[in-house]
Every structure is written in structure tokens, then in C-alpha cells.
């Protein structure tokens, strides 16, 4: 009975342990996989012709002839969409028509004066022109097509008047005819609604295809200069174009409800209705999406605060800061550990020192950041002639202090576990303590020390708080010396995530940055693990 109980307990223990492992793996997969999936879309995605144009113009990558040929190929297809849009919007924008009508009236008056028309004729012609103008304005003002038509017909009745032949007043009739067509086909009372919708449509068209050719390049950076560079973005813009999104109140205290109506339905019966099926069917032809491997993501600089481009300078900065921090921390840590193990007497002060080091490992990293700013950046480095400003060297030193406890702990443990027999053998052969440490203890402890190195490297690469004040900037040039600040991946992620709407507009770039950081940490670790493996194998024989 007792035996059976013990067996059951053993099995339960096994199952529990297995469950814990499965849970950890699942949690890791649950966090990492979506992140990697989204991050990888920064590198592998369906790029459109806009992407290739952006790459060519901003970075000089790609074949300009091929891109231009592609642009020329899509231009007529896009042009047709623009034409549909133009034909519809002409009738809606009455303010422009009103000013044109008033202009015609003035031009006509000026013409009459120039021709030195007799006063009586002048009077009649001017009255006629004034009448036509007022009729047209009344027609434009009319809230309904039925009300506008009599006004328009009144204007068109003077179509053949001899007095108006070959004068500026002829333009009245063009406007009247055009507007008559609109008034019969378009539901004029919904003009306001149309105008609003049209603004959204134009916006979506701009997001999809970029600014119209021939129009001035918009202000506000490269972000406005290109259409959808990625096919997934294009899909979103297409949704904006095809669906009208409205938030409807459901009563006080209740959340607004999103209502989607197809714009094709909204514009049914108008000349614009044909735009939607056209754009939907020809979106691919207008943008030419193609699977793209954007390997330069890891080396390119960014454009428009990470809306376009890659994480090159960030990667470089992270590598620089991390490696430099470890290069500083490793010798210091090993020497400190050597002292603690080999030389320090076993006294209260030594024990206190050891406790301090252990405590230091748990101090919040922001404290190190402030320490680094106060000590390295503002006090120590200016003594060596550096500016009192963030610099790679200040950040690296701060990170070095941050990882020092980890390095000391790991090295101490590693040195302590070197068998005493090795040390005794070396001393018995007449080696001094230093020589014994350097030739026997240190090489034997190297795998353990490298483990500390791995841990500290991962920590240094991922930390944001210590570099916040000492080295990191969100944007700026690639550093030319160690006395300059740099961008880093960890700070870049933070800045992008809390900064502005870029993270929302280009989530792939944020996740791409995160994944790059993870990849760098893993790569550094893999390198250190490989090194440790080599060392350990050499020791084992």
C-alpha cells in the first residue's frame, strides 16, 4: 500500500514537472511566435511598385529603369480611376463654379468696355449677363435637381443670342450644360454627404496610389510621397476606399457601434459608382505587388521615423554598446572574482562585500541609468575632455557597471569550482600564485566565465533604462566616434511603442525591430555558447 502510494506520488511529480515544462514552452511559443511572425513581415512581404519607387528614391536601391518602366505600365490604369473621380467631383465643388461664374461676368463686362459697344447695347448685354449669372447661381444654390432645372433651362434659352456670340459669356452655357447633366444624374440634396465622402475617397486614393502625378509634392516628409508600399497596407487603404465607416450612437452610456456601408451603394446611380469595382479589380494591376525579401532591413537607415526603411544604425549601435560594455565588464569582473576567491581573507568585510555585489545585481536598472548619467556622463568623462552629453562610451560604462555583478558572480562561481587539485599541482611545480591563476585556474574556469558573459551580454543588449540618459537617441546621425550618442534597438522599440502613431501605421517595423533585437541577442549568445563549447571541449580532451 505504502509502495503504491510512493509510486503514485512519483508519477504525479513526473507529470507535474512535465506540465511545467510544457507550460513554459507554450508560453514562450505563445509570446515569441506571433512576435516573430509579425516581425518577419518587415523583411518578407508583398512589396508594391510604390515600395520599389521609395527604395530607389530614398536609398538608391534597385534598378531605376525597371522601376520607371513599371511605373509607366501602371500609370494608364491609375489614370482611368482618376478620371472617374474627376468627372464626379467637378459637379460637387460648387464654390469653384461660383467663382468661375462671377469671373465670367467680369470678363464679359471688360470685353464690352474694350469693344466700345454703344451705351444702350452695353446696358442690355450687361443686364442679360447679370440675369444669366444670377440664374446660374440660383441653380447651383438649388437644394434639389428639380428646382435647379428651370433655372438652367432659362440660361440655356439664351444659347443662340447674337449679343453673346463670341464673348466670354459663352462659357455660361458650358457650365449650365455640364451642371444640367449632373443635376439630372446626381442626387443633389446629398451633395454635402457626397463631398465629405469624396474627401475620404481622395484620401484613400492618395494612401493607395500616392499623390497624383503632376500635383506638387506634398509637404511633410517622405511618408506623404508614396502610396501603399506593401500589399497589406494597400488592402487596408482599399477597405477605406470601398467601405464607409460610421460610428452610430446606440443611446446614452452605451458604446458607439461601428457601421460599415459599401460606398458603391452610397454612390449608386452616380458616375462615381463605377470607380469602386474598377479599383477593386485593378488594385493589383495598379500596384504590382510582388513577394519581396527586404534583407536590407537590417542595414538600411529609416525614413520618416521608421515609417519606411530599416534598423541599420540601431543594430550597429546596439552591437557597439553591448560589446563595449562586456569588454569593459569582463576583465574587471574576472579580476574582482579572482580577488574574492584567491586573495580575500574570510572576514566580515569580505562577506559584506560579497553581499553588496549580490544586492547590486538586483538594483533596478533605472538606478544604474541615473548613476551613469551623474557619474560617467556629467562627472568623469568631462574630465577627459568629453562633452557633457550622451555618448557611446558613457552608455557602455553604465551598462558595464550594470552587468558587473552578474560577471563577478558567475566568474567567482567558476573559479571556485576549479578543482583544488589543479591549483595544488601547479603550486607543487613551483608556480607563483599569479602564474598558477593565469595558466591553470583561469583556463579551467573559462567556460563558467563565458556563461556569465552570455548572461551579461543578453542583459546589456536588452536594457533600455540605463541607456535612456547616457547614450540613446531616437533619431540622429550614425555615430562617427565613441563620444557621440547612438540609436539602439531597445530604445528604438521603446520610443516607437510609446512615441506616436507610427507604431500603429507601421507595426511591422516595430516588430521587425523587436525581432532584430531578439535575433542579435540570440546570435551573440550562440557565438558565446560556441566559444564555450570549444573551450570546454579543449579542456575535456
Amino acid at each position, binding site marked *: 500500500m505504502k509502495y503504491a502510494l510512493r509510486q503514485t506520488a512519483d508519477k504525479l511529480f513526473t507529470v507535474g514537472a512535465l506540465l511545467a515544462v510544457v507550460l513554459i514552452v507554450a508560453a514562450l511559443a505563445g509570446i515569441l511566435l506571433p512576435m516573430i511572425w509579425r516581425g518577419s513581415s518587415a523583411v518578407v512581404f508583398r512589396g508594391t511598385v510604390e515600395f520599389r519607387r521609395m527604395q530607389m528614391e530614398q536609398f538608391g536601391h534597385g534598378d531605376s529603369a525597371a522601376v520607371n518602366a513599371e511605373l509607366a505600365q501602371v500609370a494608364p490604369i491609375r489614370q482611368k480611376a482618376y478620371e472617374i473621380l474627376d468627372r464626379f467631383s467637378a459637379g460637387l465643388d460648387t464654390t469653384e463654379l461660383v467663382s468661375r461664374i462671377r469671373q465670367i461676368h467680369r470678363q464679359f463686362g471688360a470685353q464690352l468696355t474694350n469693344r466700345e459697344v454703344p451705351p444702350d447695347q452695353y446696358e442690355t448685354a450687361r443686364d442679360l449677363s447679370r440675369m444669366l449669372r444670377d440664374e446660374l447661381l440660383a441653380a447651383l444654390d438649388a437644394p434639389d435637381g428639380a428646382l435647379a432645372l428651370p433655372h438652367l433651362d432659362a440660361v440655356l434659352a439664351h444659347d443662340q443670342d447674337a449679343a453673346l456670340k463670341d464673348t466670354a459669356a459663352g462659357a455660361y452655357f458650358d457650365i449650365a450644360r455640364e451642371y444640367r447633366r449632373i443635376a439630372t444624374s446626381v442626387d443633389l440634396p446629398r451633395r454635402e454627404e457626397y463631398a465629405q465622402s469624396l474627401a475620404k475617397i481622395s484620401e484613400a486614393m492618395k494612401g493607395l496610389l500616392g499623390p497624383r502625378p503632376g500635383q506638387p509634392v506634398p509637404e511633410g516628409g517622405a511618408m506623404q510621397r508614396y502610396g501603399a508600399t506593401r500589399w497589406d497596407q494597400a488592402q487596408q487603404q482599399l477597405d477605406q476606399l470601398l467601405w464607409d465607416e460610421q460610428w452610430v450612437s446606440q443611446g446614452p452610456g452605451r458604446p458607439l457601434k461601428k457601421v460599415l456601408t459599401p460606398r458603391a451603394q452610397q454612390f449608386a446611380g452616380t458616375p462615381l459608382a463605377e470607380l469602386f469595382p474598377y479599383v477593386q479589380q485593378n488594385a493589383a494591376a495598379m500596384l504590382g505587388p510582388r513577394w519581396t525579401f527586404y534583407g536590407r532591413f537590417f542595414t538600411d537607415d529609416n525614413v520618416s521615423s521608421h515609417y519606411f526603411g530599416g534598423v541599420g544604425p540601431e543594430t550597429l549601435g546596439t552591437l557597439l554598446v553591448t560589446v563595449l560594455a562586456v569588454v569593459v565588464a569582463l576583465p574587471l569582473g574576472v579580476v574582482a572574482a579572482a580577488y574574492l576567491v584567491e586573495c580575500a581573507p574570510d572576514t566580515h568585510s569580505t562577506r559584506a562585500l560579497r553581499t553588496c555585489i549580490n544586492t547590486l545585481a538586483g538594483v533596478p536598472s533605472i538606478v544604474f541609468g541615473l548613476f551613469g548619467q551623474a557619474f560617467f556622463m556629467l562627472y568623469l568623462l568631462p574630465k577627459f575632455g568629453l562633452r557633457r552629453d550622451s555618448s557611446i562610451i558613457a552608455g557602455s560604462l553604465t551598462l558595464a557597471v550594470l552587468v558587473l555583478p552578474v560577471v563577478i558572480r558567475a566568474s567567482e562561481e567558476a573559479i571556485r569550482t576549479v578543482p583544488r*587539485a589543479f591549483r595544488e*599541482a601547479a603550486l607543487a*611545480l*613551483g608556480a607563483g600564485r599569479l602564474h598558477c591563476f593565469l595558466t591553470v585556474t583561469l583556463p579551467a574556469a573559462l567556460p563558467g566565465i563565458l556563461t556569465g558573459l552570455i548572461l551579461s551580454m543578453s542583459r546589456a543588449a536588452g536594457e533600455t533604462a540605463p541607456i535612456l540618459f547616457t547614450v540613446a537617441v531616437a533619431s540622429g546621425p550614425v555615430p562617427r566616434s565613441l563620444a557621440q550618442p547612438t540609436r539602439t534597438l531597445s530604445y528604438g522599440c521603446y520610443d516607437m511603442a510609446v512615441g506616436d502613431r507610427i507604431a500603429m501605421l507601421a507595426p511591422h517595423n516595430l516588430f521587425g525591430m523587436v525581432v532584430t533585437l531578439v535575433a542579435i541577442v540570440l546570435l551573440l549568445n550562440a557565438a558565446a555558447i560556441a566559444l564555450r563549447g570549444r573551450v570546454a571541449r579543449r579542456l575535456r580532451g
Partner: protein
Amino acid sequence: MIEVNEMPQRKVLAAGTAAKTTDVKMANYVPQAAGPEQQLPAIIRADRFSLYYGSHAGVKDITFDIYPRAVTAIIGPSGCGKSTFLRSINRMNDLIPNTRAEGTLCVNDVNVYDRRINLANLRQQVGMVFQKPNPFPKTIYANVAYGPRLQGVHGRALDEQVEQCLRHAALWEEVKDYLDRSALGLSGGQQQRLCLARALATQPNVLLMDEPCSALDPIATAKIEELIISLKDEYTIVIVTHNMQQAARISDRTAFFCLGELIEYDQTKVIFTNPVRKQTEEYVTGRFG
């Protein structure tokens, strides 16, 4: 600084320091030509030597002479101070904190517990082989070359010395093609012979062996024993052992320690056949210990 039996290679290196210190220069130990061993003067002399761990005495009042070119075995039950005494000779006990020595322990007429002694030099003169084989986690070559390199031997001379030491330790034929392999890949017996070669490479006069065969199987033990017998023509060997048969087989003289005191010290055959003290007789016949 006191140099024990200064080595020829060592002279160049030590010349600078030797001039400054209050040096008590010892003449090289020159063994006299063949003859009865009793005629040779003792190389290690303990005179009322005691070593304390804190307040507890590891060995107390030891007085005996160890003669050169012979194997001296130290036997006794566990905890009787055999190893303590052995490790005092090259001052390996220094690694243990709070040790204190009284009396004198002379190697080649130099008191090793003199404050001015050159420890590195002493340990080069007095080599040691430990209970467990403890080769460095380095190549076979680097293991043997460790001592000579400390003395500044390089290049071809080093190669020759390594080969010679490995031949002395009867290991050369087995490892000559694998000198750059890790020493940890060798078998236990081979490792112990490598440690012996490594100890020989510093060209010591005295070899201390702390139960060198206790971690080995009988075949490896036999090889080491053979080796010890062949080496005694050139070296003074002091061996601590638990194995009384081994002591009887290989040693010329045997010391019996008990509870930190030297009970009896005489020719091996006397100790094993006709001991003076009753305690010794009980121990060697297996009735005690």
C-alpha cells in the same frame, strides 16, 4: 632569500633577486659515488618538528632523517599525520589557513619553514605526486612542459626535456603520437604516470608521493611501483601509503606514524619482520589499524 639547491637553469633567472636578499647559498647536493646508503648524509632532516592546524597538532615532535637515493615509506592508520608530514616538506600545507610549524624541517640543510625561503625554488627541488591523478586540463605536452617553462626552458630543449621525462615515467611509448591531445583523455594509470613525468620535469632531488596508487587498479599500481624502484637510483623518494605490501615491496626504509607521532623508523625489513615497538608489530600484522 634562501635557495634550496639552486638549479643551473634557475641561476640566470634568480641572479637579480639573489644579490639583494640575505641569501644563504647552499651548495648543490652532490651525491657521493656508489656505496652503502648509510654513508650518504640525510637530505631531509626533521628535528622536533610539529605542525598545528589551529590548536590541533597534525604531527608533533617528529625527529627523523630521510636518506637520499632511497625509497622511504611512511605508513600508519588514517589521520595519523602521514600526509601532513609529507606536505610539510614542500610546504603545501600553506594552502590551509591557520597552520603553524614548530621545530625544524630541513631539506638539504635549509629549514623549509624559514620565512625567507624561496617557495618556488623549494617546490621545484621537492616534486610531488598526489593521491588522485590531477593532470591539468591541457595537452599532454603542456602538462609535462609546465614546470620547465616556469624555469625558462623553451624550444628544442623543452621538447627534449619533455620526451626525457615521459620516457622516465615509462609513458613515452604510449603517448608519443598524441602529445597534443588533452591529458584528461588518458586512463587513470597513464594520468598518474603523466603527473609523475610532470613532477620529474622540474628536475627535483626529492619526490614526494601521497598515496600515488590508491586510485589505481592493480596493473597500473604495479607499473607505478616498478617506476618508483627504477627512479630511486636518481631521486630521493618519500611515499605515503596505506598498502603495507606496497611499502614492503618498494621501500628501503619505513616510518610508522600513529596519532601524529613517529612510532618507529627503521629498515623496511626490520619494521616488517622484527619491529621494536609493539604498536608497530600490531599494525603491520593487521591486528590494529
